[in-house]
């Protein structure tokens, strides 16, 4: 334990500490004072806080910056910028203490040690990879490998990616400010379910503002301001440690698989370590090198699972094959468990069970469910028959109508008529019928503006024909056999499934055994599975892309009745689903023919709809006319009846009396009085009139009948016409449908084929060789780019050549020109070869000359030495020395010099010749622009050779100049020597003269 650790004094503003944390402080001898329980004062080194969001107050109160009091928050900090600026150094949720890293993080923080290796900072990390960053914008592959490793280790790999990307860009910004230096060394590894990434780098003059300015919690357009914040928020624990001794910063991000650590429990540490304490030595396992380890990066796309979309959206985004599953999921998830229990309970109720078995179910609204229209007609006939019977009784008895009695008798009569199969349906219906009939009768009478007791037989007939069907319809609902099958199937599956799942022999016991949420989840799952299977087996939804209107209705009704859900809700689910299917996210391209067919289909559909509407109108008109006709006839008949009843009864009665009177008189052969004659006359007139009227009425009736027949035939004709049109349209529609179906099938086949191919390709891509293929592709792309560049260069060259050829095109054809240039090139090459040989000869000669010059020098030196010796001897002896040898030597030297000079002159001449020739050849070469690449290359080579030769020539010339200088020097020396020799000769002669004089 260091001295610094012993003097730690922490002001605890959080109240009670978690036991693990308190234990840690106690174990490490760190004094923690709670101001509420103790008035002890100390030189605080740290302040523990919790749920504080304005740290400015603490900074001012405790002068945290001035006194170097570090703030520690045990809860999430909303404004990290504010926290850091207020000398906040650690955000550490007490939950971390339950994991393996908690005590270590605190050790690291309070004991202030750190290293640049992951294993130094965090214990026993097994290194999974390492790399160095020299170019922050060239890290793709390293990052891919690291993220791949994170995926493999099962941590939040995307958070790792976000952390790294943002941190690296933050560091790049610091690099631009010359606050940090490259390289950045990155190490990543795992330890006991924790994934760690560590970066370290040089830094200089890094200020708090450099860090805090990028911690803005507001996401703004300028990413630089929140880069570090995003990085911090992406890690479960973020550690930014400055090592002042070595001017390095170590940034570590940790991700834990511990589900207890959530966003609000994330940690942060900003440590400024002035002097590194002794670092505990932790073994680091493993060592990696990207040079050695170059694993192919597997596609981990499958690990990216986006969050669930909102419920409304869910169904719309599901592919066709999952339709039944989606419906099952949607419906089962919309039911709470209590409702499911009711469904299950309802399923085991004896009566309901009997209903299910018999195929009749009463809905929530009290409607009796019927299997089909036929079933409805059957029941309607039964009810009508029962009404007919009661009506006959009433007619026969002549009693006034008693609605209660009538309704009950109709209902009971109905029960008597029922066959065995219909018992349950009629039983259900029969319970409701009396009340309905009674109410219906009152309503009907009200319509006719009569008291119900005054309803006539005709009224009852009308009630029977028009109102009874309405009543029956109001109390029943028609569903198909599929519906029943679905419901039965679902209930059977659910029942059996529950029994099997909970290993009970009855559903009652099953319900009793459901006690835990897990059991409930099992039931819900079973419901979902049963529903899915039922939908699949009854509607084959998985195999369909769409369902018909009829199927939709059946589904809606079945599911609505099964799950006691509003029909609209169920319909919404199903319709949404179907719409989603009808409008896929990615539609295939339609051909023109398909478009045309679709357009025609739409027109036909539209016409069809119009015709149907027209037909409906006509039918309605016919119905109205029929009704009117019948009502008119009825009214007429009634009026006639009444008139007959009122008028004719009197007339008929009077005429009958008169007729009898006259018959009697005729029988007695009595004469008719005048009065009788008038009466008879009037009687006869009345009869004639009556006959006339009857005839006219008959004619009128015939006319009406004819008109009616005409109208009827006209309507029938119209009806038939419309029907024919409809049939024609239907035929067209069917044909178009068939064509479209064929095209669709064909397209579907093609799509499936393409899908299969795509799958194969995807599988192939997902398989191992994909990386190598991509590498090859990348290489090929690069080669392609290089070749493109080369092509560009050659294009430029060719264009320049073409320009040159164009300029020369006046003289001769290009082929001749090429041939001529080639010949010239060959000549030039030969010339160069010859020149080279001459040059090498010349160089050899120069070296020989140099050797000769050296020997001459040596001889000169020797001569000089001899001369000196001779002169000294001459001076010493004073004797005349005629040196014949010397003269000979001198002559020899002179001759040699002369030869040398000649050789030099020759060499210079040759050199000049060569220079001239090279100059000419260079000129020729420059003039002769080649027309093709080969010639150009050769010319380039020749130019290179010429340059080289020219350089060699220059060197040779320089050497020659040096030789000339040497030669001049030698000449001068020779002249000097000759002068000296002359002088010596003269002196010798003088000496000899003196000597002879003395002797004389």
């Amino acid at each position, binding site marked *: 334990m260091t001295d610094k650790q012993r003097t730690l004094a922490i002001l605890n503003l959080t109240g009670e500490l978690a036991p693990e944390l308190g234990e840690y402080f106690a174990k490490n001898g760190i004094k923690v004072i709670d101001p509420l329980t103790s008035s002890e004062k100390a030189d605080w080194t740290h302040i523990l806080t919790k749920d504080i969001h304005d740290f400015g107050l603490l900074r001012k109160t405790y002068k945290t910056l001035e006194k170097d009091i570090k703030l520690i928050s045990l809860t999430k900090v909303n404004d990290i910028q504010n926290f850091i600026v207020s000398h906040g150094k650690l955000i550490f949720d007490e939950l971390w203490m339950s994991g393996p890293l908690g005590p270590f993080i605190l050790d690291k923080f309070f004991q202030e040690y750190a290293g640049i290796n992951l294993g130094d900072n965090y214990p026993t990390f097994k290194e999974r990879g390492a790399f160095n960053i020299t170019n922050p914008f060239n890290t793709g*592959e390293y990052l891919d490998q690291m993220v791949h490793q994170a995926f493999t280790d099962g941590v939040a790999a995307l958070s790792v990616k976000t952390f790294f990307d943002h941190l690296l860009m933050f560091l790049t910004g610091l690099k631009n400010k010359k606050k940090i230096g490259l390289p950045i060394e990155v190490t990543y590894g795992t330890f006991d379910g924790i994934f760690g990434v560590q970066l370290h780098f040089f830094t200089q003059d890094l200020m708090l503002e450099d860090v805090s300015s990028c911690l803005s919690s507001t996401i703004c357009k300028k990413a630089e301001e929140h880069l570090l914040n995003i990085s911090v928020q992406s890690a479960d624990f973020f550690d930014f440690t400055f090592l002042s001794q070595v001017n390095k910063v170590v940034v570590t991000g940790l991700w834990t698989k511990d589900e207890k650590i959530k966003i609000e429990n994330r940690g942060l540490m900003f440590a400024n370590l002035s002097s590194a304490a002794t670092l505990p030595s932790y073994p680091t396992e493993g060592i990696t*090198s990207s040079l050695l380890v170059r694993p192919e990066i597997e596609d981990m796309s499958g690990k990216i699972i986006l969050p669930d979309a909102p419920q409304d959206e869910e169904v719309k985004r599901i592919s066709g094959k999952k339709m039944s599953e989606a419906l099952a999921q949607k419906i089962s998830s919309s039911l709470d468990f209590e409702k499911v229990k009711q469904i299950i309970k309802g399923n085991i109720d004896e009566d309901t069970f009997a209903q299910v078995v018999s195929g009749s179910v009463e809905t929530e609204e009290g409607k009796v469910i019927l299997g089909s229209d036929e079933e409805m007609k059957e029941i309607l006939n039964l009810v009508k028959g029962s009404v007919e019977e009661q009506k006959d009784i009433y007619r026969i008895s002549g009693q006034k109508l008693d609605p209660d009695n009538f309704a009950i008798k109709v209902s009971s009569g109905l029960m008597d008529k029922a066959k065995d199969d219909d018992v349950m349906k009629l039983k259900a219906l029969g319970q409701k019928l009396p009340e309905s009939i009674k109410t219906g009768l009152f309503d009907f009478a009200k319509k006719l503006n009569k008291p119900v007791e005054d309803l006539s037989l005709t009224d009852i007939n009308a009630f029977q024909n028009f109102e009874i069907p309405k009543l029956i319809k109001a109390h029943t609902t028609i569903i198909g056999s599929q519906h029943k099958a679905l419901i039965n199937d679902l209930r059977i599956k659910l029942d059996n499934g529950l029994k099997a799942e909970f290993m009970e022999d009855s559903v009652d016991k099953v319900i009793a055994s459901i006690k835990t949420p897990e059991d409930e989840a099992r039931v819900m799952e079973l419901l979902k599975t049963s529903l899915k299977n039922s939908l699949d087996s009854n509607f084959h939804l998985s195999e369909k892309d769409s369902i018909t209107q009829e199927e939709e209705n059946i589904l809606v009704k079945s599911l609505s009745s099964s799950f006691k859900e509003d029909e609209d809700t169920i319909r919404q689910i199903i319709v949404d689903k179907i719409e989603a299917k009808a409008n896929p996210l990615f539609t295939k391209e339609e051909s023109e023919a398909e478009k045309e067919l679709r357009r025609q289909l739409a027109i036909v559909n539209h016409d069809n709809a119009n015709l149907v509407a027209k037909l409906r109108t006509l039918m309605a008109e016919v119905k109205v006319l029929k009704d009117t006709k019948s009502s008119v006839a009825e009214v007429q008949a009634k009026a006639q009846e009444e008139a007959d009843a009122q008028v004719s009864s009197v007339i008929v009665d009077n005429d009958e009396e008169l007729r009898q009177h006259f018959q009697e008189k005729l029988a007695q052969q009595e004469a008719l009085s005048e009065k009788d004659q008038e009466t008879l006359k009037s009687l006869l007139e009345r009869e004639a009139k009556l006959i006339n009227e009857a005839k006219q009425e008959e004619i009128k009736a015939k006319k009406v009948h004819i008109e009616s027949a005409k109208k009827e035939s006209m309507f029938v004709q119209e009806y038939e016409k419309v029907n024919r049109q409809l049939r024609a349209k239907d035929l067209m529609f069917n044909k178009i449908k068939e064509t479209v179906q064929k095209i669709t099938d064909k397209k579907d086949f093609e799509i499936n084929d393409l899908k299969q191919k795509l799958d194969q390709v995807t599988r192939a891509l997902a398989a191992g060789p994909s990386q190598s293929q991509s590498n090859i592709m990348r290489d090929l792309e690069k080669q392609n780019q290089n070749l493109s560049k080369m092509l560009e260069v050659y294009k430029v060259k060719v264009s320049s050549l073409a320009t040159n050829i164009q300029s020369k095109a006046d003289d001769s054809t290009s082929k001749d020109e090429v041939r001529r240039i080639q010949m010239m090139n060959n000549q030039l090459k030969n010339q160069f070869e010859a020149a080279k040989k001459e040059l090498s000869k010349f160089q050899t000669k120069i070296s020989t000359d140099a050797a000769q010059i050296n020997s001459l020098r040596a001889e000169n030196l020797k001569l000089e030495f001899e001369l000196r010796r001779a002169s000294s001897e001459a001076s010493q002896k004073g004797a005349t020395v005629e040196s014949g040898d010397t003269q000979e030597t001198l002559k020899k030297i002179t001759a040699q010099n002369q030869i040398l000079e000649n050789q030099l002159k020759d060499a210079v001449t040759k050199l000049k010749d060569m220079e001239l020739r090279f100059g000419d050849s260079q000129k020729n070469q420059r003039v002769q622009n080649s027309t093709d690449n080969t010639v150009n290359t050769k010319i380039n080579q020749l130019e290179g050779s010429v340059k080289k030769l020219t350089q060699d020539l220059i060197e040779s010339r320089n050497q020659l100049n040096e030789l000339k200088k040497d030669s001049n020097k030698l000449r001068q020396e020779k002249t000097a020597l000759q002068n000296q020799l002359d002088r010596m000769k003269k002196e010798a002669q003088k000496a000899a003269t003196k000597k002879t004089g003395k002797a004389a």
Partner: protein
Amino acid sequence: MKHASLNPIQLPIREFAKKNICDGHLYLATKEGRKFYLMKPGLFVDPAFIKKHAPHNTIFEFTPVVNEEVKERFNVLFKELLYLKFERDLRVKTFEIVSFFQKAYTGKEHILSFASVCFENFNKIPEEALLKMHNTDMHLFRKSLYSAAFAVIIAMSNDYYHPLMLRDFFNVTFAQDMGLCESEYSYYVAQACNIENRMPGSGKAWMVKEGATPSEVNVFLEHPRKSYDFLKQAPDILAFNELAEIALYQHELADGRGFPRGVHKGLISSWESIVILADSLVEIEDQHHFENEVISYILNFQNEKLKDLPVGKVYKKLCLNLQYFVNAKEGGA
């Protein structure tokens, strides 16, 4: 000596003047047939030497130690590396260089083939500075050249691929003893460097024991800082100026007993370890001329010495990479 058995060639002074680094053994033959040994492989070709001999068109006897084919191959690989930009391409190329290094140096090949290519492609130290070092101690120069070359191959093996970064490693390693090139440089300083190299942490003690003057001791102890100052003051040498700091780490030890800062291994980064290892691989007065079996030399490096140096990780990676190629070769690759 081994090289004497090789057939010498006649090398005119103008040909020799083209060389920056002497890549063979250079002799001067007298008329009488006596030979004077003028220059060892790895030494700097001093312009004064050329100036002295050029007027006489001296023709030397020269025994080359560099394999021109190997050198040319390294040269081509380095040129290709300098041309590349993308990380993956760079990595593949460095992989190729390390592979060829392993292949070339498993047999009898002089390290100079690689070192001279590194020098030609990477050297950014001004000529006067090189001359100063050369004039201070020719052996120091040669040692620095070889160390710098080793730094390049160690860096490549430790996932450094960027040509500029590799160039900086070469130059930092080359210049990290520039601080020794002072007037006080003496036998004691040179010997202390040797002792320190052989037994890390014992150089200063040896100097004190042997009676070196305080200024000599100071030269020895302060040379990392002076080398750092040299690199800082010559900004054109390094592409990443911050890497000058590496020069401060050359004599740091794993346990923190080193100088000048006494930094322990937990604070020493890989880029610093690379230079420390490269420096340790070559001794100033090393009789081993790296004429053959360089790979064997690296793989059998003294473990006792390594224990004290903070280079464990980078050395391990170097060996792993070299061993990888050895294994690949043995495995029929």
